[in-house]
């Protein structure tokens, strides 16, 4: 197993629509220890479907509870531009918060919502990763456009477009942009899909992500460990690629 595994796509907490048995920070650490994952990037479920403020607090609480194990991702909700404008800089004063989460699906908007611009500019300035729920062609095209405008920001296509046809479209964007990546978080984990993603996007643009605790990470990790790819490619996917992104993040001025 790789020496450094970083899960770039995780959440935290209960969810309204279904039971999440291992939803607590301690559950997630137990799970990470079981499969030798050193760090996980988290945003709280509450921020996706409910109150953005206690949800982001929940994320910060977990980051503080397990320093060095969780990388905080601040969820940006464009329906509250003033609140986001005041909260976001405060959160990034904490060096445990190193990314932004966007879920335009549950927030029922699009990436081109003008109220997202503040977050893109912020990410551009601090070279932050922006994890975006990427499930359709419109979002992929949006990332194509935004990534050329905000070249300092790092755009992560969460779920890699989801279905194979969209994965191919996503890969076409990823290959042409230095600042766009795709992650492996999927509930429909198809046979030898990792090999194909490496083929169409390149191992240096694929990131290990699982959607824990929405989804148990073990099946996702197993398909990468069992993939017919080179050892260096596997190590890049499991941790090196994302570690380079994190090392490039610029600290916020306190």
């Amino acid at each position, binding site marked *: 197993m790789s020496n450094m595994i970083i899960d770039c796509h995780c959440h935290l907490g209960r969810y309204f*629509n*279904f*039971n*999440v*048995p*291992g*939803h607590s920070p301690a*559950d*997630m650490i*137990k*799970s990470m220890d*079981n*499969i030798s994952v050193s760090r996980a990037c988290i945003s709280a479920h509450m921020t996706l479907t409910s109150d953005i403020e206690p949800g982001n607090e929940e994320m910060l609480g977990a980051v503080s509870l397990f320093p060095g194990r969780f990388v905080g991702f601040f969820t940006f909700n464009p329906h509250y531009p003033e609140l986001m404008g005041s909260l976001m800089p405060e959160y990034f004063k904490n060096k445990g918060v190193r990314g932004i989460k966007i879920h335009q699906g549950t927030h029922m908007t699009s990436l081109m919502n003008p109220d997202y611009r503040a977050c893109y500019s912020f990410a551009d300035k601090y070279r932050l990763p922006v994890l975006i729920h990427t499930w359709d062609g419109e979002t992929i095209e949006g990332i194509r456009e935004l990534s050329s405008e905000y070249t300092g920001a790092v755009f992560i296509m969460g779920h890699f477009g989801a279905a*194979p046809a969209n994965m191919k479209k996503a890969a076409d964007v990823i290959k042409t942009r230095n600042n766009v990546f795709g992650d492996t978080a999927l*509930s*429909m*984990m*198809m*046979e*030898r*899909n990792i*090999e*194909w993603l490496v083929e169409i996007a390149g191992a240096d643009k694929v990131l290990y992500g699982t959607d*824990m*605790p*929405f*989804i*148990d*990470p*073990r*099946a*996702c*990790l*197993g*398909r990468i*460990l*069992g*993939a017919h790819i080179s050892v260096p490619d596997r190590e890049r996917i499991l941790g090196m690629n994302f570690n380079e992104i994190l090392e490039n993040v610029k600290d916020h001025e306190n």
Partner: protein
Amino acid sequence: MALDFFDCNCCIGRSAVTNPGSFYATDELVSRMSDYGIGRALIYHTIARDHSPAEGNLLLSDITRDNPSLIPVWVVMPHHTGEFPAPDELEGQMRKNSVKAARIFPSAGRHNFSIKPYSAGSLLEMLAQNRIPLFIDIYETGWESIDMLLAAYRDLPVVLCNTGYRGDRYIYPLMETYGNVYLETSRYLSHLGIEALCKKEGSDRILFGSGMPVYTGAGAVFYISKLMLEDKDKQMIASGNLERLIGDIRL
């Protein structure tokens, strides 16, 4: 501890739509099973699912005769239209072909029939009398129909497949209520969900499945291998529970 894996959820044969990385040939299935450490598998034929159960089922015998690690599952449906054998005839055919499980695809987009007694009653009675496990993808019936099925046929082992990670609020009460319901693991992916379910309901009704050739075989095996359970529970999930179900068949 190395686990002995017996996969309860595989199919073989070419589909109209395929994905990169998938496969359809028997040799490839056997090769990938070996690669992932899966010793045996229950298989049904895609032609039985996507075209005609009566035609597709019969294609399995040539495959399983040459590959003892592959065990036949027949896709079944009601007989009323004459497209499929009546239960008494089917019973004999299943015995003759050493079939160890059945599978149904009753949804409107697939075989398009009712599983209520007026339609599938005699078929399901025959399966129940012979304790032949019945495999069902949950999206083929929806959860409410499963309750009806389990209540009406208490001797019929029903294995719920492809349940996803959102089904616990149905799965828990179904397992509490009915001793004849089982759960297949390939897409039961709620975080630490198998451990939590085992704590509540025990490990004896959870069956390892991969979903190959569509879903990841490597991931399915690693998932079970890394369960935080005692080895005896992991072995039951990996193969023991399925062996017990097959051993109970009276056909």
